[in-house]
Each structure stands twice: as structure tokens, then as C-alpha cells.
């Protein structure tokens, strides 16, 4: 038997929650603390629904879907309560969407839009905006934090760096790095898992600030160039400027499940570095001069041919690279073996 959501029938997979069934079938239920990776938290309470035969409102993120269950996600009672909940959340911080980096990519915005909340109705926002830019790559704006706990869960249970936690209680609850240290002085390793999980603009990549609205950036998946784990990552690109603005981990990758380390997430300045060589160089009298490809290829070819002729193929050796693609490695060793005629090919794998 299927499950019924708002009168429509849906198949369910074992163990799935009502929220998961709904989202899978493009039925939106506001949800701010649930994330597929950190799982149910039951903290925001925005995901409430009604279930026939059950008393009261139930949070759908931790409600296991059962066959024959009749769920309503959009009754007046549900939406009225959701509206208060989300309005209170929106009112509790400084959600200045126009200037927020997360604008357009914010789950709180989505929920407010769905519920028709135009502006916060309650006077709850703290007087002061509290930001923390003490760390290298991550900017924290606590006045936007909705205490959903995703970052804390991620830091504690996913990357297991155990830096983030909650401090204080009640309305004063705030995220804390170690024991309320500035992020830059804590044991944080700047892996950015928290950034990736934050549904709002409370923890963001500091280097993306002011460098492009989310909807203007194109996303391309590729593989991290650093260590051998081979994390899948997604680069957010400004096409016009031909620049990488930010990097996120690919959540459904079996290799890294969305996680990255500080190098993979933030260490990509080298790509657009001013130090990149943009023209072939030939050394003359101990100094490099620029050359073009049409000149340099025959120049190299001539030299190699001469050495091969005079000293034999084995007087030439080549180091291929653990940083280039399989195809390029293949081409390189083929070049050494078939064109130079030597097996003198190796790379710095073991170094």
C-alpha cells in the first residue's frame, strides 16, 4: 500500500520519513534543520504535518512513513503554525536578504516565501550584529544563525573535528568554537563542512563575499587536485570573469560524501595566479626569454633528436606526473617509449 500525501498516492521506500517521501516527489514541506547528511534533528519544527488518526501536529522529518498513512502538509492548521514558527525564526535575527551572500540559495527564504511571509513581524532581533572574521576562510555572522544545528552535527559527526558546539541556552543559544573562542583561535581546521551545511548565510566562505550572486554562478563538477583521496567537488564559476568563486563538495559522492579539506575547498588560488606561465620560455645566456609554440616545439624536437642520435635513447629520461590525468600520463609514457625509445619514465609517486 502506498502513502497518501495531500490526497495523492506515493510509493515509499523502507525506512523513509514522511519528509523524504514528500521531497522526493517534489512536495515542499518547509524544513530548516533536516539535511540528508546530518539527518533529522527535530529542532526547527517547521516541517510539521497532520496525519489522519494521530493527535496534533507531527514533525515530518522524524516521522517514519508507513503504508496507508494519510498525511496533510498544507491544511490551515499546519500552515498557521508553520507561519508563526518561521516568522519567529526570521524575526530572531538580522536576515537582510539583499546584502546576504546566501540570497537565492537560502532555505529560510524558501520557507518564508512558501508561507507568504513578507517581512518579520516580531521584534526579536538582537540589537547588535555579531560577526567573526578571525579565521582565514570562513566568515561567521551569528545574527543570521537560526540554531538549526547542522553545522554542529557536521563538525561533530561528519568530519569529526569536534570544534563546533552550542553555548548558552534558550534564545541566547549560539554556536561556539571550542569554548567560545573566535573561530580563528579555535582548533578549527577550516574544512568548511559547516559552511556547506548552513541553510542560511550565517557561516559562509569569506572569499566569496561580494564576488557574485549564487544564481549568476555556473556549477561544474570535477575532482580535487590535491591528495589521492580524489574528493569530488563542485566549482562555482563566474563565466564572464573566467574565475572560480567557490568550491563545494559533492554530497552524493561515495568517495567524500560532500566533505573536503581546507586545501580542496580553499586552496585553488593557484589556478588564477599571476605567476602562471602563459608563454613558452627558452633559456638563453642563463636568462629566460618568451617564445611561441611554433618556435619552441621544433626547438625541443631538434635537441631531443640530436641527443638521441648521439647518446642513444637511454640518455633521455622523463618524469611524468602524479598531478595530471590518466590520459596525459598515458600520452607521456607512450611518448617516451615509442618516440624516444626508452623505458626511462617514472614519476614522483613515492616521494
Amino acid at each position, binding site marked *: 500500500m502506498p502513502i497518501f500525501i495531500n490526497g495523492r498516492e506515493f510509493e515509499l521506500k523502507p525506512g523513509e520519513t514522511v519528509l523524504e517521501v514528500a521531497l522526493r516527489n517534489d512536495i515542499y514541506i518547509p524544513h530548516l534543520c533536516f539535511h540528508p547528511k546530518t539527518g533529522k534533528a527535530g*529542532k526547527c519544527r517547521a516541517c*510539521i504535518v497532520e496525519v489522519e488518526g494521530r493527535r496534533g501536529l507531527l514533525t515530518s522529518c*522524524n516521522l517514519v512513513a508507513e503504508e496507508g498513512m494519510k498525511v496533510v502538509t498544507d491544511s490551515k492548521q499546519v500552515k498557521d503554525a508553520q507561519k508563526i514558527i518561521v516568522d519567529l525564526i526570521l*524575526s530572531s535575527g538580522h536576515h537582510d536578504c539583499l546584502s546576504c551572500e546566501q540570497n537565492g540559495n537560502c532555505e529560510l527564504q524558501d520557507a518564508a516565501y512558501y508561507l507568504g511571509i513578507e517581512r518579520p513581524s516580531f521584534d*526579536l532581533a538582537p540589537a547588535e550584529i555579531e560577526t567573526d572574521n578571525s579565521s582565514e576562510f570562513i566568515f561567521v555572522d551569528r545574527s543570521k544563525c537560526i540554531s538549526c544545528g547542522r553545522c554542529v552535527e557536521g563538525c561533530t559527526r561528519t568530519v569529526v573535528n569536534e570544534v563546533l*558546539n552550542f553555548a*548558552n*541556552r534558550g534564545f541566547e*543559544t549560539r554556536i561556539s568554537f571550542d569554548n567560545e573562542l573566535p573561530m580563528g583561535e579555535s582548533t578549527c581546521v577550516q574544512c568548511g563542512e559547516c559552511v556547506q551545511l548552513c541553510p542560511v548565510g550565517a557561516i559562509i566562505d569569506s572569499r566569496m563575499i561580494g564576488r557574485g550572486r549564487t544564481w549568476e554562478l555556473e556549477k561544474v563538477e570535477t575532482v580535487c587536485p590535491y591528495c589521492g583521496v580524489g574528493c569530488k567537488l563542485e566549482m562555482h564559476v563566474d563565466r564572464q570573469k573566467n574565475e572560480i568563486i567557490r568550491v563545494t563538495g559533492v554530497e552524493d559522492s561515495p568517495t567524500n560524501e560532500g566533505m573536503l579539506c581546507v586545501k580542496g575547498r580553499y586552496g585553488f588560488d593557484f589556478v588564477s595566479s599571476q605567476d602562471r606561465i602563459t608563454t613558452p620560455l627558452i633559456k638563453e645566456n642563463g636568462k629566460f626569454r618568451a617564445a611561441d609554440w611554433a618556435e619552441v616545439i621544433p626547438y625541443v624536437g631538434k635537441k631531443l633528436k640530436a641527443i638521441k642520435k648521439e647518446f642513444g635513447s637511454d640518455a633521455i629520461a622523463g618524469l611524468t606526473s602524479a598531478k595530471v590525468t590518466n590520459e596525459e600520463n598515458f600520452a607521456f609514457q607512450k611518448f617516451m617509449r615509442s618516440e624516444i625509445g626508452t623505458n626511462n619514465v617514472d614519476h614522483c609517486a613515492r616521494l
Partner: protein
Amino acid sequence: MKFYRSHLLIGIDDSSLQAGVKEFETALRNELAKHNLTDEINILETGTLGYFGTGISMLVYPEQVTYVNLKLEYIPEIVSEHFLKGRIVHKYILDKLSSKYDFNYQGRIVLKNSGVIDPENIEEYIGTGGYEAWEKALLEMKPEEIVAEVKASGLRGRGGAGFPAGLKWSFTQPLAAEQKYLVINADEGEPGTFKDRLIMEGDPHKLMEGIMIASYAIGATKAYIYIRGEYKLCISRLRKAIDQAKEYGLLGKNIFESGFDLDVEIKIGAGAYVCGEETALIESMEGNRGTPRSKPPFPGVKGAWQRPTVVNNVETITNVPAIIKNGAEWFKGFGVEGCTGTKVYTIMGDVSMPGLCEVDMGTELRKIINEFGGGMKNNRKFKAALVGGAAGVFLSEKLLDVKMDFNSLNEYAAVLGSGAILVMNEEVDIVEMLWSVIRFFRHESCGKCSPCSNGNEILYKLINNIRNGEGKEKDLDLMLHIAAVMNDTSFCALGESLLLPVKSAIENFREDFLQRMK
């Protein structure tokens, strides 16, 4: 062990500290020393004695007399009159009904021994027939028989929710697990409530005996008592009780050669109100931040360290020995149909005789106030009673004849647990009372879920506005609406709690609110 003639309990709390209780205590010790009474009279510091605004107060055992509003100058008189000559200095004691004062806790089951036996002496407890039930349970009954007996007795949880204790045990008892736990909830965080404290102070062995029987019944070989850190005296008495029980072979390995092992450990609480909620309590016990867990799984199936764990209130468990000893039928002779046994109340506020009483379930509130609380203090007019502590209801005169049991209180049933009754006379402003209730919850919201933490904050702002004369009548509706959403959607019962006080205050005492809007 040293034998003392008297024990003086000096309440150490904010108000007594402000009144200079420390100097008072030093002066008292000096005075006693002067009269060579040091070996006869024992001074103990305890947490608040639970009387509102009574400055330095001192409870004298075994007489059970409470001196209040003490001053340094009174010391010589009290020492020479009371401690040397044995004459109570009536002018300084708590305003009791009359001279025919009889400080009996109306004890029936739970408080039967309190103030009668020396709580630090296991022999005295055994002398009253103590630990017979344990022996009977362990040697003559199967665990499932005990569970059945408790089920039959109709005993319901005294920690708040009123869940049938036997039924709760029956979920855990059959589970096969490497380890199960019993946890005694002695966190007693409800303001103005100190029934559990006095139960543990007055008769710690009875709680111990209950723990033994309950642990055996559910198959727990380890029991914890999760107790407020302020309850210093309870803790020391419980420690003594555990040591003595071990010495007598009532605890430990292979008890009475039955093959059953049991160890009891005391865990000091984290000091937050929400840590009284059973799943938050478990989190806190595990060393985590004390915030509630989602249910299911229920603790009875997956509790402390993921093992089946039964959490029961002190009072609930203290009822158990008598049930086992005398049988379910006997127990059902107390109280009313569907709500058996007795209930311990803390009566506070504008009554003549604030304190503790144990009465049958189903006793009318009016009777409790008049007979056990000694009626209104100074014969002032009754205005309201806040029943059930901060999460309780504001009852007006009209509702005074309500019977105090889970069924009669019906929608208000949740308030019964803590057993706190705060009586207010006509001068009390309900706006102020509700303000302090909301302030309490705002302070105690753990911050785990958004409706509770944000809701309490906005309610606090709204009540402050009203209090400052800036409120509007429509704010009352908004408060009700928000409290209702909090009730419907909060993660744990703490966030649900404000609806009752807010609703009952606004509905029953609307005038007080409108008064502030003029």
C-alpha cells in the same frame, strides 16, 4: 557513628545568604560551644528550606520546628530556651495555625517515617519493617510478578506525566539486554517544589528499598540517582544509606544469595530545569549537553548509553516498598478510582502553614489549603492558586473544589506531578505572577527547538510590555496564539508548558491584564 540529640538544618539560599546566614551560622556555633552543646547538636547546611522571603530559616529535628526570619540577636535566647531547656521559642517559628500545632506530615505511605526515625540509621528503618519488602520481592517473587503487582496497584508516575509505573516497567522487563538501568529522577527543578527533597532527607532508605525492588523487577543491575547538586543533605544521606545497605548485604553482588547484583550510584545534576525531562536527564548523565532527545525510541527501550532505561520519580519509587509489602489491594484503598494512593504536596504562599503534606489522591484543593495549609494567612481573601508549579494553572475561587487527581484535573492533569501549590491572596497581581512564570521558562528553555526558544522570548517581551503599561488587548490573543503553537509544536514538554499558565491566567484573571492597559 556519633549520636546527636538534635539536628539543625540551616537553609542556604539566595535570600538567606543576603540576610547573612553565614555569620549567623558562625555565631550559632560559637553560642552552642559556649554551652558545651557541640557534641549534642549537629548543624547541617541544606539548600533552600522552601519558604519564600523568610530570610534566615532553620529547621530543627526531631521537633520539626522551623524558625524563620532569624537575626543574630535571637541566638542566645533560642539556644538557652530551646536547646538547653527544650522549650520552643514560639515567637520566632513559622506562623502555624495555633498553639495546638501538630507538625505531622499527614504521612501515610511515603512520608510515614519522616521525622520519626533517624534517617541516617539503617537500624531504625529496619525497625519499622524496612527492607522486608525487598527481601520478599527478591526471594519470593519473580520480576514479572512484581511488575504485575505494581501494575495492579494503579501507581502512576509522580514526576509529572502520571504515566502508570507498572506499565512503564512492563515494556522494559521482558527485553533481553546486556545491561539495563534504573534512573531515579531527583532533579526536582520546579520552583517552589521540594517534596522529593524532604522524602530523601526524611527517609532515604525507603527510596533505596524502592530502587532495589524496581531494579530487580526490570532487570537493571545498575541504578542511578540523578539529583540536584543543591540537595547536599539528601546526597550525603543517600550516600550513607547506600553504604549502610551495602554493609548489610542489601546491595552489591549476589544479594541474599539470589544471584542478583545491584549497584547504586549518585549522579549530580547539571542544574537546568530541562534536565528533569527524562531524555535530557539521560543526555546530561552521559556527559552531553542537557537537551532532550527525540522519542521514539523511548528510554525504556533505548535510554542511557543506548540501553533500556526506566526513569522514575523519587516519590513514585518510594511508594513501591509499601505496595510490595501490603499488596496492590491495600494500596488501592488510598485515593480514588483510577488514581490510587497518596500524593505529596508542597503548599506555599499566603497560607498560614506552608509546608508539606501527604494526602489521598482526589482530595479537594480547598481541603488541602484549609486543613493542611492552615487556611489563608492572616485571614486574607483567597484570590488564586497556582497549582503544579511554574507549568501549572492559575485556579480561581470557582475552581477550588476540584478534586486533585489525574482524572478530575483532566486537561490540567500534567500539573499534578510536581505537587506544588502556590496560594495567592487578593493583593497578588496575576500579571506579575505570569511575568515571573514566563521569565522562568524563558530562562529555562534549552534552546534546542525554535518554537520554545523564540516563543518564550517573544512572550517575555509581550508580558513585559503589558507590565510596563504598554500592552494592547490584542497582545493577549497573540500570546495565546503563540503559546498554543508552542504547545503544538515544541520538541519537549517544557515548550508545551506555557500554554496552561498563560491560558489560565488570561482566561481566569483577564481583569488583571486589562487593568494594566488603562
